[in-house]
């Protein structure tokens, strides 16, 4: 009896969706540890496959002569683009990749909401108006914002667009107006105005502009927050589409993504001691423009530059060395060279640890992926709270392409734009060596007093080259 009900098609398909979202949750819970994570990812992928097959088995989904071909076309195009991209992307380019994936997800949601709207308006179902209008409008707005915002974020990370904040005069006022247009039009539509086809395009368009305007003024250093936030937005819009389409797998899947994005957004914002609204309202832009009161570079005294050979000597005779990597390591693709240096130092009996700031790099966990790629054992990696008490016991700290996350101004200079941000307290170690391309300040454009500290020495040059030079000098000793 139960078996027959279960196999009736509608129930069977709903049951498949339940299996699918259970596998999503179970798979994601595998991500709590590196050992179980690969399997967890596979389990989630199986869940996705089940959801897609169940959808294709739904009555009428494949009806019509061209429908199966068009569906196949979409699936083939998507695979043809997604697979090589995922196989070939460099680990250093992961932030761009994630931003782009976020964008296409948001774009898909916006398109689906648009079609949904067109279709149901034309068929004039009054039931639909009550039930699905609000989630569909929500999905249209958030999906469109996410699509355009993510593409801008991608452009900035890929350096197609300048990474520095781009601001228009009256930016927040314009954003406010656009937001009101989006929400206002949505309310008008839900209340049942006649020129509906136009309104939905207007909403998508205003949301697109808003997405552009919100992300353009955000500086490169705030990218971890932006990417997480867009991730959350895409997830929520997918969940809203799920409600509109009565699809439990979409509701649960979307909501998991929404939860994940929200958690990461909060973590990143906390790690920068900044509120999410402040970041969305416009980067470090305003703060850099007014450096008044903060001592200028010329007041700080000279910087001391050093040579690879000196660094090698210092490192080789240290008891404990901490390496603090940042975005510069990613840009220079220096992770493998860093691993070589770590091995060389360990061979000399030096204890090497890595200090990972939560917002080092351009996305959450960016440094961990790069170091994992280079085979650095993850028990050498220390989070900020663990490593900070160790700095006084550290002989030499090697800062590789990290700037703002090591900037003591965050602790000592209440006038600094990053004042209050928790940092890696590298200035408390015995000596600091900073690998830098040039004296240009970091992405946030904030001067770093660390460079002028008497116990700091700077080694200029490409990070990868510098690290390799140091390593060969260490071997030569």
């Amino acid at each position, binding site marked *: 009896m139960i078996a027959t009900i279960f196999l009736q098609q509608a129930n069977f398909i709903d049951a498949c969706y339940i299996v699918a979202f259970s596998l999503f949750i179970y798979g*994601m*819970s595998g991500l*709590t540890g*590196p050992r179980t*994570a690969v399997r967890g*990812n*596979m389990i*989630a992928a199986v869940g*996705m496959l089940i959801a897609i097959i169940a*959808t294709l088995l739904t009555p*009428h*989904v*494949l009806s019509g002569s061209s429908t199966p071909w*068009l*569906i196949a*076309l*979409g699936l083939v195009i*998507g695979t043809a683009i*997604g*697979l090589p*991209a*995922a196989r*070939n992307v*460099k*680990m250093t380019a*992961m932030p761009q*990749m*994630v931003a782009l*994936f976020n964008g296409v*997800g948001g774009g*898909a*949601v916006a*398109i*689906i909401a648009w*079609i949904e709207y067109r279709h149901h308006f034309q068929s004039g179902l009054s039931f639909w108006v009550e039930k699905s209008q609000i989630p569909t409008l929500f999905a249209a707005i958030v999906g469109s914002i996410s699509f355009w915002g993510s593409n801008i974020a991608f452009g900035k990370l890929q350096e197609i667009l300048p990474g520095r904040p781009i601001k228009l005069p009256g930016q927040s006022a314009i954003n406010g107006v656009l937001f009101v247009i989006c929400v206002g039009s949505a309310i008008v539509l839900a209340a049942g105005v006649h020129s509906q086809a136009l309104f939905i395009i207007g909403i998508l368009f205003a949301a697109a502009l808003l997405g552009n305007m919100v992300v353009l003024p955000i500086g490169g250093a705030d990218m971890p927050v932006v990417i997480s936030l867009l991730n959350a937005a*895409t997830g929520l819009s997918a*969940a809203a*589409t*799920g*409600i509109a*389409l009565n*699809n*439990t797998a*979409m*509701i*649960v899947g*979307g909501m*998991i993504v*929404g*939860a*994940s994005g929200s958690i*990461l957004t909060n973590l990143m914002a906390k790690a920068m001691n900044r509120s999410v609204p402040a970041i969305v309202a416009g980067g470090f832009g305003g703060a850099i423009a007014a450096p008044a009161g903060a001592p200028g570079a010329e007041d700080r005294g000279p910087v001391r530059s050093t040579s690879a050979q000196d660094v090698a000597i210092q490192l080789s005779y240290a008891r404990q060395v901490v390496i603090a990597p940042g975005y510069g390591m990613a840009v220079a*693709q220096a992770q493998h060279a860093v691993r070589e240096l770590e091995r060389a130092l360990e061979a000399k009996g030096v204890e090497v640890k890595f200090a990972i700031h939560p917002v080092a790099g351009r996305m*959450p*966990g960016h440094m*961990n992926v790069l170091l*994992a*790629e*280079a085979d650095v054992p*993850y028990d050498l990696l220390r989070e900020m709270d663990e490593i900070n008490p160790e700095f006084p016991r550290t002989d030499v700290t090697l800062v590789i392409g990290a700037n703002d996350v090591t900037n003591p101004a965050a602790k000592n200079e209440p006038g600094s734009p990053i004042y209050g941000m928790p940092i890696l307290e590298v200035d408390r170690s015995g000596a600091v060596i900073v690998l830098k391309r040039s004296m240009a300040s970091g992405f946030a454009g904030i001067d770093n007093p660390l460079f002028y500290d008497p116990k700091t020495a700077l080694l200029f040059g490409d990070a990868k080259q510098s690290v390799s030079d140091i390593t060969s000098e260490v071997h030569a000793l």
Partner: protein
Amino acid sequence: MTTITEIAILVLAAFVGFEVISKVPNTLHTPLMSGTNAIHGIVVLGGLLLMHEAHGVLEHALLVIAIAFGTINIVGGFVVTDRMLAMFKRKPDLPEAAAPEELEGGGK
């Protein structure tokens, strides 16, 4: 299904999501993001469900794009996450043989 049931599912999913994801260590946050990218590819179902109801070239073309976008997410997301997570596994000597190709792609 009633709207209220769906909202109940939504709320419960939010709690489960927060519970599960907050246990993910910082180390794995990048794979977490790409993994959730793959999961929001679930929107592809929307494209699949609407295709047979579509009228005209515009709607069909848009839905093909939406399905392609969703598929990019699913395929790209799961594959790149798998690639990343494989690096986090502590490598004994065996997978070393499979690694060089990966390293070449990633560490140029």
